[in-house]
């Protein structure tokens, strides 16, 4: 979705932000580094890290951005559990875009890959 959005808006981004690269997250995305760190801290469930990330995002981007980002992160804390608890496969394994994103991010290493045969 990030790559589709970047293509739609003609923005040059670096997908490595998804894997935790702060410089990559900042490329082409306003407050990208702070947003990435905030989402990361929520998912890692480390209170001190979360408090620091929350403060950093608030100071850089303000309360509206902080609240909207919290909503998105909370939503995806749920989505991953729906996907893994029901074993759903990826919808379209044939698209070149999807294959490229999975390869770039190394997603095949995740256990849930077993639910999607022949993703290569």
């Amino acid at each position, binding site marked *: 979705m990030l790559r589709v*959005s970047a293509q739609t808006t003609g923005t040059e981004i670096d997908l490595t932000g998804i894997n935790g690269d702060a410089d990559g997250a900042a490329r082409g*995305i306003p407050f990208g580094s702070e947003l990435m760190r905030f989402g990361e801290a929520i998912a890692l469930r480390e209170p001190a890290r979360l408090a620091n990330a929350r403060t950093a995002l608030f100071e850089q981007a303000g309360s509206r*951005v902080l609240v909207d980002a919290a909503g998105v992160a909370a939503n*995806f804390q749920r*989505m*991953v*559990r*729906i996907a893994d608890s029901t*074993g759903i496969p990826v919808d379209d394994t044939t698209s070149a875009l999807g294959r490229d994103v999975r390869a770039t991010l190394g997603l095949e290493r995740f256990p849930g890959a077993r639910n999607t045969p022949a993703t290569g």
Partner: protein
Amino acid sequence: MAYFDYADAPFPIRNDIREAHRSFWQRLARAGSWWTGAQRVAIARESRNALTCDFCARRKEALSPYVFSGTHTHEGGLPDAAIDAVHRIVTDQTRITASWIAGNAAEGLSLEAYVELVGVVVAVFSIDEFSRALGLALELLPEPQSGEPSRYRPAVLADDIGYVPTVPANGAVGNEADLWPNGGRAPNVVRALTLVPQAMRDWRELAGAQYLSFADMANFVGHPDRSINRMQMELVAGRVSAINQCFY
């Protein structure tokens, strides 16, 4: 009691988020399709207990969760298999398998009850995560209401994806006509909980407030009611998903 007034929140909370959280809390307290209101609230309580469950923490470190025995920290009100399912979904979801779900079904936790349980767990967990993300106290759980489960099961189901039956992509008809435009695209994650259609409706309502509505998901630029554009949203979503090792 007025839940989710967010009066003490140091940041203004969008009204649509507040309303979505309140709306789910009301449904949480009522009998669902396969669980009573008291059981649904017990499921919600266990989704919180799982985060401090010592057995869950030790099992997550084990090479296989299926050869590791012990007892969860829990408050009862549910069959053992349901307590284990709740804790597993919250703390060790990547290692859930089809055979474990089928084994539970053989011992009384039906696929339908399991799917409703998943829906309750993930909704409560997501609402709690929103509060935790902003440094807010978790909302009190609602008082359960009396009533019996409807035991409603969709008439048209398929076994073509995942571990549980789902409404097929072209099956949004009859009582399920509101799920998505029939003939339209129904991604697997949208279908995932449709063995219990209300669980999917809950999913949709919460997603519409915390992330995007179905209609807005096709907008890859940005929504006027959001302060972050779609790229910013997807960066957060992607990082959260990566840490959770989500392949989907």
